[in-house]
């Protein structure tokens, strides 16, 4: 009998929790194109494999445990698309095998974390933005392609306590190209690639009364435009800067965010403003929060001395791989072969790789041990953190022959403990 149930979407950082899913037809309603693709039937990894040969879960996990225990310094990477319960086991596993824990934020929003270390994070939940924000600035962020329902649910046309109508909110997009989001905005400010930092500095100068120091044009934006933007920001009742990878992945990286946070600090001397990153994967926040409470840091954590050390310059996955400083890798719910620069991918081709993932991807092509897993949010439950840190329990709505990430890691941890005994 067909049944439609509520689902919590496990694609992007918006983690929309109002999805409807027909478990019989395997089809969703209400979700966006990304969510619908998530909640649809796709090719799966059929069975656990060791060196291309199908084996049982037990055999694959045994082999994976051997690889990890025999490695001097394994890299355990991914984590952004699984649940906290699995991540916690992953952190403990990395601690046990003296490896390096890193997660997808490292090539995504981690520069924002470095900025938090410098200046903090004056922010709010998406609900605070929906209820109160009369000015929203998307900076280097394109939610219409990366978080398609964000605007409707939280930020652009979302209505709430003080904002009862789209007209009561001014939406500004700052980007290097006229994105789909820019087309929905009340204003689009096109900047030259890599000029985020000086533009933010100019805004800070104007707001703190030093407009004289600002040249006629900064990063492709006229001084008049900058003054106008500064005024809009100062006159907002409650503003929100939502930034994306356009800021974290281009020149300046963490310093761009640091500067933006300083702008927000300054604006709070006049009115209320918050800033928040548009986090990508549905649980990339959990992939940082869980290790933070377990071992003190969010990413790029080395355990080779038996205690955690944090250093992105040394222990981020890209740096470790480029330096050939790991002799095995466990990749979970991620595809670094597709998403890392080639200089990093090269080393992954040369070392034993264990993959845990529901779907075949480019990393599958280089993996020695492949362990298929249940899809969190459809076939497995657990906790995930929305981009603003709000915890939501993603649901199991379909039975599956696949083991969940949590089950796989629990067994793997037991095996590792056995072998190390």
């Amino acid at each position, binding site marked *: 009998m067909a049944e439609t149930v509520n689902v919590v979407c496990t694609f992007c950082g918006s983690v929309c929790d109002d999805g409807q899913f027909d478990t019989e037809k395997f089809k969703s309603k209400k979700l966006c194109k990304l969510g619908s693709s998530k909640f649809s039937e796709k090719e799966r990894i059929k069975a656990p494999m060791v060196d291309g040969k199908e084996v049982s879960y037990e055999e694959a996990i045994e082999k994976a445990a051997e690889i990890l225990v025999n490695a001097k310094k394994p890299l355990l990477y991914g984590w952004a698309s699984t649940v906290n319960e699995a991540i916690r086991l992953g952190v403990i596993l990395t601690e046990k095998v003296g490896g390096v824990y890193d997660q997808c934020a490292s090539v995504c929003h*981690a520069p924002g974390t470095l900025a938090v270390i410098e200046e903090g994070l004056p922010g709010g939940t998406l609900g605070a933005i929906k209820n109160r924000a009369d000015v929203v600035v998307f900076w280097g962020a394109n939610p219409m392609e990366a978080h398609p329902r964000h605007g409707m649910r939280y930020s652009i046309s979302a209505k709430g306590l003080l904002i009862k109508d789209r007209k009561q909110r001014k939406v500004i997009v700052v980007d290097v190209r006229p994105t789909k989001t820019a087309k929905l905005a009340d204003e689009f400010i096109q900047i030259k690639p890599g000029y985020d930092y000086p533009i933010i500095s100019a805004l800070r100068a104007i707001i703190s009364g030093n407009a004289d120091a600002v040249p006629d044009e900064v990063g492709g934006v006229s001084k008049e435009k900058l003054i106008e933007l500064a005024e809009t920001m100062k006159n907002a009742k409650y503003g929100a800067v939502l930034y994306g990878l356009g800021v974290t*992945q281009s*020149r300046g990286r963490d310093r761009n965010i640091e500067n933006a946070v300083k702008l927000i600090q300054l604006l709070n001397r006049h009115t209320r403003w918050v800033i928040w990153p548009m986090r990508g994967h549905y649980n990339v926040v959990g992939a940082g929060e869980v290790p933070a409470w377990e071992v003190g840091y969010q990413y790029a954590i080395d355990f080779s001395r038996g205690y955690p050390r944090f250093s992105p310059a040394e222990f981020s996955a890209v*740096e470790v791989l*480029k330096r050939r400083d790991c002799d095995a890798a466990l990749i979970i719910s991620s595809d670094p072969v597709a998403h890392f620069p*080639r200089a990093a991918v090269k080393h992954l081709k040369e070392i034993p790789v264990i993959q845990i993932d529901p*779907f075949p991807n480019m990393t599958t092509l280089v993996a020695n041990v492949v362990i298929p897993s249940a899809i969190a949010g459809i076939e497995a439950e657990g906790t995930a953190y929305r981009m603003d840190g709000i915890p939501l329990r993603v649901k199991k709505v379909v039975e599956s022959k696949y083991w969940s990430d949590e089950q796989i890691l629990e067994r793997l941890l037991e095996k590792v403990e056995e072998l190390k005994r």
Partner: protein
Amino acid sequence: MTKTFGDGMLEVEVITGRTLNQGATVEEKLTEEYFNAVNYAEINEEDFASLGLQEGDRVKVKTEFGEVVVFAKKGEVPKGVIFIPMGPYANMVTDPSTDGTGMPQFKGVKGTVEKTDENVLSVKELLEAI
């Protein structure tokens, strides 16, 4: 400023990013749909014309860090900027240096783009080329 070299080669800044199609196919990396979602470069209309390109043509993108052949598409990007969806094609030419942050420079890498007759590699061929 966009410099033009002889033989229709342009100096550009390469940026990468998410797209809806890339996202919708990201869990099906070994399919035609994913291949089509990430194997192209969006080029400014004027640059597109100055390179003598037609829709469906291929271009070779070169940076200090590598080169890759992708399909050329007209796109809403500024002159002198090309956009390649995040994925294995873009990563053939992105800058792996992280400047101590752990984050490679995925956006704003200087390079060149030119028309080519070479084929666009499949995802698997691409992996072999790394």
